[in-house]
């Protein structure tokens, strides 16, 4: 189990990489983008993005904006 932050909330996860994390956390659509510790992670790089304790993961999707 890894303790990390997903969108600012502390969670524990079995996922070893970003792709697995998204799946485990129930993300159903893929109109998403991800960042790991403030660095953008391409969609195709999520599997190779290994997670470590204390990581800060951000998952964002479209919203209205000005």
């Amino acid at each position, binding site marked *: 189990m890894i303790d990390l932050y997903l*969108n*600012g909330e502390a969670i524990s996860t079995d996922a070893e990489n970003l792709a697995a994390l*998204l799946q485990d*956390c*129930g*993300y*159903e*659509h893929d*109109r*998403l*983008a*991800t*960042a790991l510790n*403030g*660095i*953008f992670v*391409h*969609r195709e790089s999520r599997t190779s993005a290994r997670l470590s304790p204390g990581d800060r993961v*951000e*998952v*964002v*999707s*479209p*919203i*209205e*904006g*000005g």
Partner: protein
Amino acid sequence: MPEFYNEHVQNALLLGTARYPSPTILEDAIRSAEVDVITVSLRRESGGSNAGQHFWEMIKRLGVRVLPNTASCYSVKEAVTTAQMAREVFETDWVKLEVIGNPDTLQPDVFGLVEAARILCADGFRVFPYTTEDLVVADRLLQIGCEVLMPWGSPIGSGQGINNEFALRTLRSHFPDVPLVVDAGIGRPSHAAQAMEMGFDAVLLNTAVARAGDPVSMAKAFTEAISAGRSAFLANPIEQNDMAEPSTPVLGKAFLS
């Protein structure tokens, strides 16, 4: 009609999509005002949520172009990462680059802006920088690869209109061939018409429509006013003068005293 990075745009009103009373009203506003480019943003999505997907479907349904922003980013790193995420999600290399320098005025941090723009231009983005009216900053942005400039009229959401007309006129005359967009601070259609009459290519606004009593009607009003301002610019308006000039000819007037 304006052209940005070799793409023709059908409406010189670029419309923000936040703060509307409801998604339906937003959609109606975009449709009835025949908006072609909308600004959009990103936010954290929870697992199981479909909020982002729904918004995306609305965009697709409307068939509009999107200009993702980097709103609320105060550092170069944040702005760059946000832009990269937005490119993936929105499938566009256009980005409205905001690097904010002050929470009260929400004004650009021109130092961070230039640095972030440099990184993003080098990374293939087509950057629309939200900047100040500063001519020297504008020149830097152009030198590092920006092909559009978006100076503010006044603080975001303030509705004050154009606070420094002289500086914006100066920008326009120094960069006659660069697409210039007044972004932020526009409150009423007359402000937008004024910007277009000054020769600006487009106007970007959000709050003035979204927070109006009737956003749908207000969006249409801005489209009309912007079209009017553009036409007027092209039609060569009269100069102001101090003395009156009779419009009705005086010659041939009957003598009736």
